[in-house]
């Protein structure tokens, strides 16, 4: 199993997709840093001109800015997780690379688990680094828009953020074990899109007190709970900042109603169940 984990890990590192992602991520962090710097500078000037300027506006901008940064970071991580994983079994079956590996004394479930560990380990590290990079940009270049979050909240937020690729990888492995790379990729991207749109609709519904929109958001979270994990990350970061204004200030990228612990448990179970499904499906199928 560990050999497979190592192989999957190396494969992602050796392939150009990872190198390109790293370079584009650096470009993104740089761009985000520049944007944060100039936004903070302008707000800082305004604040010094307007004595007693609205603290609420400042807070809203700060959390919106970090919300945008983290949301796009979550999107990149999700995309990389999908691209790296959805062909990891299907592609090897299609090319027959898996044949010689499975002719070894190895359980098929160990192959799936090995891939989960290899890819998951890599993407968790990537997600955690990206999360830290966005927060560091805010802390160093945020100026007046700098948010103060306790270290414990930051750590919990990071763990929740880094959990996202694991859930995606579990679902991607299940799809990869049962269908072609392209079909699996399309399904997963659409599922991710449903969660993405559902999350926004839920926030709008909360703001407008529209139950229909809230319910759509809840259903989409049950179908694909990745967005709720992101919302939980945001509320973890800002709800614990001891500032009641933050709750209202997070807007579309935050969470007007924090996903419950039950939802968090559901999300974890969702990932575990899909990983078990992936192992079962791969063990039963013909190659």
């Amino acid at each position, binding site marked *: 199993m560990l050999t497979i984990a190592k192989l999957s890990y190396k494969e992602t590192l050796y392939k150009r997709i990872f190198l390109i992602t790293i370079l584009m991520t650096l470009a993104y962090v740089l761009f985000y840093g520049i944007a944060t710097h100039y936004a903070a500078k302008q707000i800082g000037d305004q604040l010094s001109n307007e004595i007693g300027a609205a603290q609420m506006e400042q807070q809203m901008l700060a959390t919106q800015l970090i919300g945008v940064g983290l949301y796009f970071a979550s999107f990149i991580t999700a995309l990389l997780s999908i691209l790296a994983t959805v062909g990891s079994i299907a592609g090897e079956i299609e090319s027959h690379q898996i044949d010689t590996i499975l002719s*070894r004394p*190895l359980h098929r479930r160990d192959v799936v688990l090995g891939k989960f560990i290899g890819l998951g380990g890599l993407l968790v590290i990537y997600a955690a680094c990206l999360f830290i990079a966005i927060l560091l940009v805010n802390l160093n270049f945020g100026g007046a828009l700098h948010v103060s979050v306790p270290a414990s909240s930051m750590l919990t937020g990071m763990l929740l953020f880094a959990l996202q690729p694991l859930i995606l990888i579990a679902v991607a492995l299940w799809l990869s074990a049962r269908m072609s790379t392209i079909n699996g990729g399309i399904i997963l991207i659409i599922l991710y899109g449903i969660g993405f749109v559902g999350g926004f609709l839920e926030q709008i519904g909360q703001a407008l007190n529209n139950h229909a929109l809230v319910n759509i958001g809840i259903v989409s979270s049950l179908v694909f709970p990745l967005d709720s994990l992101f919302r939980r990350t945001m509320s973890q970061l800002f709800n614990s900042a001891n500032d009641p204004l933050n709750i209202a200030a997070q807007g579309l990228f935050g969470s007007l109603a924090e996903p419950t612990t039950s939802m968090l448990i559901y999300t974890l179970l969702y990932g575990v169940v899909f990983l078990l499904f992936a192992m079962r499906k791969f063990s039963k199928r013909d*190659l």
Partner: protein
Amino acid sequence: MSDIVISTWGLTKQFDGRAGCRDITLQVPRGVVFGFLGPNGAGKSTFVRTMLGLLHPTAGRAELLGKPIGNIEARRKVGYLPELFRYQDWLTGLQLLETHAELAGVPRSLRRERIRHLLERVGLTGRENDKIRGYSKGMQQRIGIACALIGDPELVFLDEPTSALDPIGRREVRDLMMDLRREGKTVFLNSHLLSEVENVCDHVAIVHKSDLVVQGEWRKLSDVQTQVEIRAEGVSLALWQALQHLIVSAKPLESSVMMTGSRWLIQLSHEEQVPDLVECLHREGVRLYELTPRQPALEDVFLHWVGRKEAEHAHHRETLL
């Protein structure tokens, strides 16, 4: 240690009731090169993939090295070179062998030496640090053979192992198979190349249209007809017609003007008829210079058994009607 390394009982793998392999009952003794012979699409690869657990059988059962297929222990001492060999081309040859050594459970202390030895054996020494994507097809097949042997297997499945090799490479693989046999290993050779099987196999099974036609020792299987080549003086077609009760057929062969007499290929029903033939020729006043028993070519044997099986099927169908 059992003397049988592969046993199958009615092993069947069908795809929606079609193709694959059907009702294969087979026994492969230890320490032989076993030829699994049949035309393309006969079900040879399906059989091997089922034995290795890549396909799940639809009926029957099988054992590898005394353990049921599907059990990972059954694959502990097995090597495999697939027909459609594709390896992680972003690895170097050395990294690929190291990965497979790890998967096969080769002790760390033995890995380096075994890899060095295998690279030498397949003629890839000096190219081990090149990426596999830079290898030619023949080199990929060679690294595949090294991969198959990395776990020091007792049984090696080679599925069309020379398909990408040039004549020199083919000869090297034939030598390798004979070396493996000398080392006491069993080689299960899947091939549609009759010449490949004929040159190295002790035991042969013939598959045709998913069915096992026949299996056994090549020497016995090839004993389907007795042929002798003779050179004699005073022989004519009329003589052979007169000996119809004894011979199956007589075919003139090319003769040299420098030779005395003419050359003929005579087919008899049984080997026991050879002395009778000599006696008859002597009685008829024929002067016999040479009589050489001729081994039938594998192609003849193959066609004989396939033809026989088809005739049996036809007879069976007629009986049912």
